């Protein structure tokens, strides 16, 4: 539909060149012109702003590539059935998370810096607008890449929650839960801090559970000394403790799910609140300005009233003087 006439343009450039040469017109063109062009290109100041902007963009690009590269491993390595070739340990994942966060922080700092510097030297309105828009684009890019990262993390957290839910469906909750608790103990340090208080419970419970076990084993040696009633009592106690643990697990799992959702909502809310903050600041400024103006207005009105009153007094005085002088003249004359 659209026709590319760039070649036509280049051809006309050649025609014009030859025509000018034929006419002997001295133009900046010709052989010297091309060299001039080259010279003019290199020492032209590349513009501090745009080169730094491009640097930031390349950084963010590197982060994105890094995340995408390891993404498959990060996510896929959850199935235990998969061979350990492509598997990532949790420490590696944590490392990736940390690196990514540091990177993102430095990038956003660089953007902030650019923003403050961008408006310093330049006086032209258009260039300012352009630079603001460019910085907006870069921030948007950063946000998009950050989304990649947060998606990955969300998937990871979700998987852990799902795994716990699955482990609940095992017929032998006792042994399986113990395995899963031991795993959870190792994984818990990498979770959100809200779960810290719950993790403290686990070691206690495990030790508490281990105690009666040890107790039974210990006493198993001297089983003849234990009456069958005591064995039964201990077994009942075991069952009770297991029941308690299970219910606690249920609750904790649910709470985790809710917490994830709530964190998501929090994100949205903080975004909105930050937006509103800027607006409220500006409204505050406006209101302060308005009160100042009103104060000044009041002052002016007071002045005006005073002047008005003073003016009236003078007029009255003048009229009275005039009438007195008239009376005086009249009396004088007659």
């Amino acid at each position, binding site marked *: *539909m*659209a*026709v*590319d*006439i*760039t070649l*036509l*343009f*280049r051809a*006309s*450039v050649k*025609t*014009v*060149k030859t025509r*000018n040469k034929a006419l002997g017109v001295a*133009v*900046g*063109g010709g052989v010297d*012109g091309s060299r*001039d*062009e080259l010279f*003019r290109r290199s020492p*032209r*100041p*590349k*513009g501090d702003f*745009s080169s730094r902007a491009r640097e930031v*963009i390349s950084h963010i*690009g590197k982060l*994105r590539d890094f995340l995408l590269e390891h993404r498959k491993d990060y996510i896929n390595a959850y199935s235990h059935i998969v061979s350990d070739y492509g598997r990532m340990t949790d420490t590696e994942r944590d490392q990736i998370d940390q690196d990514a966060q540091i990177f993102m922080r430095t990038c956003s700092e660089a953007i902030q810096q650019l923003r403050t510097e961008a408006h310093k030297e330049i006086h*032209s*309105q*258009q*260039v300012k*607008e*352009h630079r603001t*828009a*460019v910085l907006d*684009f*870069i921030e*948007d*890019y950063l946000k*998009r*890449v950050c989304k*990649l990262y947060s998606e990955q993390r969300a998937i990871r957290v979700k998987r852990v929650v799902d795994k716990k839910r699955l482990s609940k469906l095992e017929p032998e909750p006792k042994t399986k839960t113990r395995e899963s608790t031991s795993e959870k103990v190792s994984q818990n340090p990498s979770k959100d801090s809200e779960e810290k208080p719950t993790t403290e419970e686990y070691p206690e419970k495990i030790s508490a559970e281990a105690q009666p076990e040890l107790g039974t084993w210990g006493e198993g040696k001297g089983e003849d000394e234990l009456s069958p009633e005591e064995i039964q009592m201990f077994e009942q106690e075991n069952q009770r403790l297991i029941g308690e643990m299970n219910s606690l697990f249920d*609750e904790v799992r*649910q*709470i985790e*799910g*809710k917490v994830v*959702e*709530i964190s*998501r*909502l929090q994100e*949205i*809310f903080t975004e909105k609140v930050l937006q509103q903050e800027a607006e409220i600041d500006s409204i505050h400024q406006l209101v302060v300005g308005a009160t100042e103006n009103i104060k000044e207005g009041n002052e002016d009105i007071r002045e005006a009233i005073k002047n008005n009153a003073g003016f009236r007094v003078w007029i009255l005085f003048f009229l009275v003087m005039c009438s007195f002088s008239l009376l005086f003249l009249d009396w004088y004359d007659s």
Partner: protein
Amino acid sequence: MASAAASIRERQTVALKRMLNFNVPHVKNSTGEPVWKVLIYDRFGQDIISPLLSVKELRDMGITLHLLLHSDRDPIPDVPAVYFVMPTEENIDRMCQDLRNQLYESYYLNFISAISRSKLEDIANAALAASAVTQVAKVFDQYLNFITLEDDMFVLCNQNKELVSYRAINRPDITDTEMETVMDTIVDSLFCFFVTLGAVPIIRCSRGTAAEMVAVKLDKKLRENLRDARNSLFTGDTLGAGQFSFQRPLLVLVDRNIDLATPLHHTWTYQALVHDVLDFHLNRVNLEESSGVETSPAGARPKRKNKKSYDLTPVDKFWQKHKGSPFPEVAESVQQELESYRAQEDEVKRLKSIMGLEGEDEGAISMLSDNTAKLTSAVSSLPELLEKKRLIDLHTNVATAVLEHIKTRKLDVYFEYEEKIMSKTTLDKSLLDIISDPDAGTPEDKMRLFLIYYISTQQAPSEADLEQYKKALTDAGCNLNPLQYIKQWKAFTKMASAPANYGNTTTKPMGLLSRVMNTGSQFVMEGVKNLVLKQQNLPVTRILDNLMEMKSNPETDDYRYFDPKMLRGNDSSVPRNKNPFQEAIVFVVGGGNYIEYQNLVDYIKGKQGKHILYGCSELFNATQFIKQLSQLGQK
């Protein structure tokens, strides 16, 4: 596969986006690096872009600044600049100046219509002088010299409307060269339109009119382009679907002179009313709202008028649904939308109270899960709700403004009366009564009514009657110049053919006790008749119907037939194609308006699988048309 005539708006938008992406097809990539550029356009470019792309969409494409060509622009280093201009002398001069001043890093030049060789050499000259040849990265002819307003409606131009207006074409003192220029402009735009559409139409036009001249020229231009195998614009991969459809569209070129009553007609559908009564331009409506007068004891403060402008876009679902509905329906629908919005708002508010209660209840953890899900969905649906509210506000304001006008000018009375005149049913009130009625409408309305009467009567009223009418009109304050012109026109067309008849139609006034009143709506339409439109076919629609369905009709039988794809250039009056057409493009030379557009849309709604595009050389409402007629009548 979409047919070739479907959505000219999409095609033009795609072409524009491609141009903005440095003429590489645009691919949405969520993790792509940002590329930034500056857009420079002239007034033509601005008119073309503004109905199609909003500022936000321009931002999404990476445009940081958009500036007019002829404004003061500062040098912005390291930024590519995309130009979208018409290849006129002054634009070229300004571009050369930019090249000399080294404003930007690289230049992507896009011309709205084809640029001539000599002008291209001018640019080359300037580029050489500024040693900037390598900076000119790409030069393109975009062939986008028309403005798309709706999915299936386009206008030729807005900036130089004067050049191709009805008045310019029908002036008695027009010279041949001027006529040539006007025709060339129109043909150029039509050509660009067909290039963008990607199809070569079959052209039919009436004899002896300006439309015929346009048809001849367009046929010639299309033919030349098709013959030129090297540069033909109609072959190649860029065609897309158009290449594979066996059906070619039908282009019907009509002249404004076959139907002068429709532009003067008072209307009753939403979009046409907005265009008639308010300031509606390129899908943007400008409202003046006057805030209340506060008279302080010190003296009256002048009324402050707030100007507001709204964009009526395809994203606006309410507008799309109700553009063509009669006005009372629109009022009702706005009420309904408002009620449903309030219901949704209450839902969201109710959640708040639920949350407050349950949060303290310890044993309700399972309920909590439900509520977080509800809360998430409520929060995510908030932006939608806000958008809905904005649209409702917009339409409430617009509809209220329109209603104001209707009430003060009694437009419903005029509408009903004109419908009766145009359908030649008996009139219950004499024309003279309405004209001398002092509080029914502005003088312009009365003039319109009288002109419609004059145009559609079979025999001219007697001299005495005419004098009476004239006197009544001048008493009401009208200017009689348009009447002069219409007299001449009528005499002229009588020779050609019988005046068009408008089919029969009736308007049923529904009682004042309609639902609108009972729901206590804001739109208190008391005293305004709730008229219901019945389907009628305007002359243009009838001609289209005949031509599309290959019906035989004395009106359209002797229309000329052009087929640019045929090898021999002879035009026979016998159409070679005997099948009815699936797609048609109606183009009115001399100006069109929304009433005809709406009529065509209604007509095609009844037919399955057929598409119509409507175009005109300029879009005017009745006020502007009367102005042109009075200028013509002055000569």
